[in-house]
Each structure stands twice: as structure tokens, then as C-alpha cells.
């Protein structure tokens, strides 16, 4: 297993964690090709998550926008409401096979934390979630949800008290207690083998989508469009299309209040090479390598880096990454709700926004990935619109 994607990737972790990371690499190398493990994972995918997820032809949206024939890949229909469960099931099952009894994870908005708490309950494992203090306040309902599922939620007080700091604190916790504990990283980031492993588990999205679109249309899509924070749903959505050179791969990153304002999380547009959170990749940072505070209306995209494989796809020109502002994402959130009766996660709305802007330029099918459902965002959207809502 290569531990790099071009110049990006690697294993930049403290010595205390090296043995654990190398053991994980070895175990994943084995179980990846283990038929029993794969069969068990497939069974959970179909019987617990509800896979395959639908590829839905958005007819009214297609008619309204003109140009592309728009298909939505419905990861929002998965159990727990997003693509996160694909990776969590894969890693938790692996951790259990390795004899680990405890899962720890970071979460931003709470989607990954909820998925991890869910699978910990399913597999009878202990679970602790680390979440920035500010995010626990913004997403109080998800905190309660994780606790309901039996997880302990730790509010992270250090640093800027958001996702990046939750990752720092989960790393610290892993160095405190590593022998019985697996750090279930939620995105295609961190030290090798995490980016490869997370991508493999999420690649079920593109495996299904490729078969589904060929069945429906008899041709490959002109483009596959997904939102990118750390980039796990995007890498999963791109993966099986990477060899299909004619398929455009488009990642939509959070431009927040606009690239010029300094309040955004657009890593590809504004970041430079660095080494952080275990990997060499692109990061929003200053001239001395201090990691920049980032901003997005979407807590799930509010991360100053990007998965190492995306950095390489960008460097090779195989995928294109575009900034989408808060305002564009909110418009898309409302648009998809009204025209198709599908409320997307505000993260996913960044991908929908690209289709809104550019559908007319395509003739042929395109796939827009709805990575999660938007129920969690309804209150925040109401606040954004100035609606006084009592939960």
C-alpha cells in the first residue's frame, strides 16, 4: 500500500502513535482482502445502512435549469442521514477485528459523531466524541443525540473551539490511551492509512453511481459534483470515475462570505502546501505555517485543510475545485427543497449550487451528490433568514 498520493500524504504523527498507525496499516492491508470481513461489511451496508443509495433523476430541476440531465446520488437516505456511516462501519468493524474495544472521534456539526456513536452502539463498543465547545452549543441537539446513543461527548475548550481543535484533542486523547482505542477519523485526512482507508469505504458511492448511471443512460456522466471539506464524500464519489478521463470531477469548497473577505474555508483556492494533522497536503495558513482560523456557514466544511488525495488530484489537474459562497449554498438549499422536495445538508447544498450555476453548460447527464440530509440545518437556515424560531 503506497502511503503517498504524489507528493502528498505520509505519516506525520508523534512517535507515541507510530506503532498504532503501523498496526492499523497492517490490519487494513489484511482485512481489505479478507472475504469474511468484506461480506460482513456488505451485509451491514445493505441491511443496516440501506445501500445501494438511490440515483434519482431530478426531472423538475432538469426542466427548470435546462442543459444537463441532472441525477442526484442520495447519500442523504442512508441510516443516520449522511455518507459518514459508510466509513464508520468499515473502520469500526476493522477496529473490532483488531481487538479494540473503544472508539474515539472528532466531529464538527455532529454528523460523524452521530454515525460513530450509532455504530458503537451497534457493535457494543465504548465511544467518546470530541467536539469544539462552540459547535456543542450550535448543535446542542446532536450532542443529545450522541448521548442518547450511549456516547460520551467532550466539549473541546482549546484553540478556536471548532472542528480543527476537536481533531487536535482527539489526537491527544489517542496518545493518552492507544492500546484499546481506535481513532475513527471521519474524513479522508490524517496519517496513512486513513486517507486510503476512508476513500475505499466511501468509494461505494462512485461504484454504485457508475453502474446506476450506465443502466439509466447507457453513457457515463459528463460530470460528478460533490462538496469538499476534508473531502470524504467527494473522494468516494470521484474514485471509480478517476480512470474515465472524459468525466469531469468537480469539488465544491466553502467560500463562506467570499474569498476576498478572509472568512472562508476554501483550501484549494487559497491554501498552500503544509504538514498538519498527520499528512502533507494543502492548508489555509499564514507565511510562517500557523494554521488559519476558517469560516463557513456549514460546520462540516469548516476545516482549514483538505484530504491528501484531493491535493494530488488538484495538482494533476484530474479534478477541479470551485468555491461556493454561503449565499449560493443557502439559495441551493431552498431551491432543492422546493423543486424536488429534498432538503439537502447545507454541505451538500454547495454541490447543488454548482449545478444551479452551470447546468446550462452541459448536454448530457451529470451526477450531483447529496451527501447528507438537511434536517440538522433547518434551525440555522431559519436564523440565517432572520426567522425567529423556537425549537
Amino acid at each position, binding site marked *: 500500500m503506497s502511503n503517498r498520493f504524489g507528493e502528498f500524504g*505520509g*505519516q*506525520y*504523527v*508523534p*512517535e*507515541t*502513535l*507510530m*506503532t*498504532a498507525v503501523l498496526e492499523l496499516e497492517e490490519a487494513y492491508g489484511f482485512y481489505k482482502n479478507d472475504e469474511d470481513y468484506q461480506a460482513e461489511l456488505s451485509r451491514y451496508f445493505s441491511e443496516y445502512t440501506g445501500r445501494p443509495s438511490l440515483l434519482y433523476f431530478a426531472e423538475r430541476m432538469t426542466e427548470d435549469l435546462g442543459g444537463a440531465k441532472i441525477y442526484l446520488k442520495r447519500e442523504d437516505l442512508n441510516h443516520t442521514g449522511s455518507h459518514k456511516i459508510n466509513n464508520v462501519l468499515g473502520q469500526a468493524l476493522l477496529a473490532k477485528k483488531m481487538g479494540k474495544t473503544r472508539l474515539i472521534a472528532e466531529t464538527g456539526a455532529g454528523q460523524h459523531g452521530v454515525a460513530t456513536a450509532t455504530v458503537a452502539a451497534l457493535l457494543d463498543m465504548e465511544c467518546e466524541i470530541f467536539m469544539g465547545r462552540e459547535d456543542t452549543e450550535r448543535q446542542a441537539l446532536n450532542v443529545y443525540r450522541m448521548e442518547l446513543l450511549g456516547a460520551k461527548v467532550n466539549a473541546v475548550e*482549546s*484553540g478556536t473551539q471548532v472542528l*480543527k*481543535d476537536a481533531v*487536535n484533542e482527539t*489526537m*491527544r486523547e489517542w*496518545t*493518552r*490511551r*492507544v492500546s484499546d482505542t481506535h481513532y475513527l477519523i471521519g474524513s479522508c485526512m490524517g496519517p496513512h492509512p486513513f486517507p486510503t482507508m476512508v476513500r475505499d469505504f466511501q468509494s461505494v458511492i462512485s461504484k454504485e453511481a457508475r453502474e446506476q448511471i450506465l443502466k439509466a443512460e447507457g453513457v457515463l456522466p459528463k460530470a460528478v459534483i460533490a462538496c469538499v471539506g476534508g473531502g470524504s464524500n467527494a473522494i468516494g464519489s470521484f474514485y471509480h470515475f478517476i480512470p474515465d478521463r472524459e468525466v469531469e470531477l468537480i469539488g465544491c469548497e466553502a467560500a463562506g462570505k467570499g474569498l476576498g473577505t478572509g472568512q472562508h474555508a476554501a483550501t484549494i483556492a487559497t491554501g*498552500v*502546501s*503544509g*504538514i*498538519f*494533522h*498527520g499528512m*502533507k497536503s494543502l*492548508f489555509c*495558513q499564514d*507565511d*510562517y*505555517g*500557523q*494554521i488559519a482560523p476558517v469560516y463557513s456557514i456549514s460546520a462540516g466544511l469548516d476545516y482549514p485543510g483538505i484530504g491528501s488525495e484531493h491535493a494530488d488530484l488538484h495538482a494533476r489537474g484530474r479534478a477541479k475545485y470551485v468555491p461556493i459562497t454561503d449565499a449560493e449554498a443557502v439559495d441551493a438549499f431552498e431551491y432543492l427543497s422546493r423543486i424536488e422536495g429534498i432538503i439537502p445538508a447545507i454541505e451538500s447544498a454547495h454541490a447543488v449550487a454548482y449545478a444551479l450555476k452551470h447546468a446550462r453548460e452541459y448536454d448530457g447527464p451529470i451526477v450531483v451528490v447529496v451527501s447528507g440530509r438537511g434536517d440538522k440545518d433547518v434551525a440555522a437556515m431559519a436564523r440565517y433568514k432572520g426567522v425567529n424560531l423556537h425549537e
Partner: protein
Amino acid sequence: MNKKMFVSFVTAGDPSMEATKGFIEALSKHSDIVEVGLPFSDPVADGAAIQKANIRALENGATTDSMFDMLEAVEFGGKAILCYVNSVFVYGYEKFFERCERARVYGVIIPDLPYEERDEVLPFAKKHNVHLITLIAPTSKRRIAKLAKDATGFIYLVSSLGSTGARTSEFSGDLEGITAEIRKVTDIPICIGFGISTREQVEKMSSIADGVIVGSGFVKIIEEHAENSVEKLENYIKILKGEKDV
């Protein structure tokens, strides 16, 4: 080795570079090496005390350049730098170690640069005659011989699991065993660090290895007394070394 080594630590630029210079000069009278932490926004190997020191230093405008300017003005030859790999990578490996050499820095400790990744950094350290210090942890197990064999300067033996900062009882039970394993392949000094903050701990760890590294204890004094820390720092180091009663 008869005399035990003592390595002390302060964060560069907390509360100012000028103050840090004074702290290093004071501590150098009682230390073999003074480690200077280059502040980083996200110090994942550090506990609360050093995290806060990093934030204070950054808020006070500390940068890689201002740290090197300060270090160049300190005569003491036992200077080491503790920094995160991103600070070195972004500054440029060649430029970073060239400045280390100019400031007569003895060694650089990069906690998030493990053995497997250090080949991209090591040639620059060697070229500029700076030791890239090897860290060994209680979890290193089968890796110990490999890591120790290539080590130069001194070995930084991590005392226990977790990040830096004071602790009372959770040191790894096998530091003697790890030390013995290291001894099979190298003669360079072994210093134990992470969580050492009392005279009893210094005595115990010094008896196991060749010396100790104390960090958070000094940083906490600076947190409390800021510019006026010099006397307190000297007092504390004398207590730790048994040269003065508590």
C-alpha cells in the same frame, strides 16, 4: 556518565522575545541544554500549559524569524529548538537549518516528524551541523533499536503516554527496560521528558537515564510572572536539581 544532564524548556516569545532571551540566559547557568519552543497554532503533542504559552507568544507577535534573531544574540551553546514540522516545512528546510547553524543551535526536536518521514529533513540538518533529535516512546516497542541506532546528540525518551504537562503517577512502568534496549545500540545520552515537574521525579528519572527534560513547570511560572520570572525560574531549577530546599 557521572554527571546527570538537565534540559529546561521555555516557549519563544512568551511573553516577549526579549524576555525569553533573559530566561534562556538564566536557565543556561543551571542547564546543559535549554530547549526553546517555537510557538505553533495547533501543538498536538502539548498539554494545556504549553498550548496556552503558544497562544500568548503568537498573540505577542512571535515568529520563526524573531525567534532566530533572538537565539543569535544568546551566547550559550546548548540551545535546542522544539517545533512542529509545519513550521519547518513552510519556512523551508534549507533556510531553517541554515539559520539554526548561524544561531549555533545544538539540536532540533520535531515531535510530529517520526523516523519514517525524517529523510526529507535530515540531509538539511546534517549539512548545517544540527542534531535532529530522536524521540522514543513507551509504545515504540520493536522500533526501539532501529530508532536509537541512528540517533545523534541525545535521545528524548518520552516518559509516558499522552501530551506534555505535569502528572503525578502515570509514568510508564518500563522506562528501565526501554533504556536498557537503547543502551544495546548507542552510547549517546538518554534524557527523559514529559510530565516531570518535581524534585522527586527528577531524581527518579535521572537514576533511570542520563538526564531529564522539564518543560511545563517553567512555562507555568512564566504564565504567572511574565517578564518578572527570572528569579523564580532560577529558584525552581535549583529546587529540581536538589541545590536548594523547597
